[in-house]
C-alpha cells in the first residue's frame, strides 16, 4: 500500500542486495566489536592509540549496520556519514599501519587495508556508498 511520506522508501537500503550488505556489515560489527573488547580489556596499555582506533572502527561498523538496516531519510544520512568515515578510516589506518607498523602490534580490522579480512574492509565502504546512491529516492528526500 502506498503510504504517504517516505515509508515506501524507508526500507530500500535493506531490500534485495541490501539484505546481504547489511549482513556483511553486521559481521564486521561483530568482528571489530569483539576484537576491540578483547584489546581494551586485556592489553590496552600495549598500544592505546591502535586499540582506540580499533574501538572506533567497531562503533562505525555498528552504526553503519543499524542505519542501513533501518533506512529512511534520516538513517540514510547517518549511514552516509558512517560509511564515509569508514572509507577514510580504512585508508588512513591502512596507510598508518604500513608506514608506522610498530604502533600497530597486532591486527586491527583496518590494519593493512583490511588484509587480515581478505581486504573486504577496503571494498565494503565503496559498495556501501554505491548502494546508498543506487537506492536514493528520486526527489532526494530532504524531509
Amino acid at each position: 500500500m502506498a503510504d504517504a511520506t517516505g515509508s515506501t522508501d524507508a526500507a530500500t537500503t535493506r531490500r534485495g542486495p541490501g539484505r546481504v550488505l547489511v549482513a556483511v556489515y553486521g559481521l564486521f560489527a561483530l568482528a571489530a566489536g569483539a576484537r576491540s573488547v578483547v584489546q581494551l580489556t586485556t592489553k590496552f596499555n600495549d598500544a592505546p592509540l591502535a586499540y582506540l582506533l580499533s574501538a572506533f572502527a567497531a562503533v562505525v561498523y555498528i552504526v553503519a549496520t543499524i542505519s542501513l538496516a533501518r533506512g529512511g531519510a534520516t538513517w540514510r544520512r547517518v549511514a552516509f556519514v558512517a560509511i564515509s568515515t569508514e572509507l577514510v578510516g580504512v585508508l588512513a589506518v591502512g596507510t598508518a599501519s604500513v608506514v608506522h607498523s610498530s604502533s600497530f602490534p597486532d591486527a586491527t580490522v583496518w590494519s593493512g587495508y583490511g588484509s587480515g579480512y581478505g581486504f573486504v574492509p577496503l571494498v565494503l565502504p565503496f559498495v556501501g556508498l554505491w548502494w546508498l546512491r543506487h537506492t536514493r529516492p528520486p526527489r532526494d528526500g530532504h524531509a
Partner: protein
Amino acid sequence: MNPAVETLVVVASLVPALWAVVLVVRDKGVDLALLVGAAVLELTVIVQLVVGIVLLVGSDRDIARGTFLGYLIGAVLVPPAGVAWAVGEKNRYGSTVLLVVFVVLPVMVLRLHQIWAGPLG
C-alpha cells in the same frame, strides 16, 4: 583445537552452503532444508564452544585466550542472527545471507585453529 570438532563444523557449513548456492541460482528464498542445515550447524558450534572452553581451561599454553574465546562465542551467535535476517527476504538475497554465514563459519574455524596453534604454529 580438536580436529574432529573442526571437521564437524566445516562439513556442517559447506554442505548447506552448496544448497544455498542452488537456491541463489534459482532465485529462491530460504527453505526448510536450509533452515535445518543452519540448525545442525548451530548444534555443531555449540559443541565447539563447549570443547573449546574445556580445552582452554585445561591448558596453560600462551595463546591469545581472549580472542579464542571471542571466536568460540561469535561462532554461536552468527547462525541464528543470519537466519533471523535472511528469512525477511523471500528471494535469492535471503539465501545469499545464509550462504555468507555458511562460508564465514569455516573461516572462523580456521582462525580458531591458528590461534590454538599459537604464534609459532
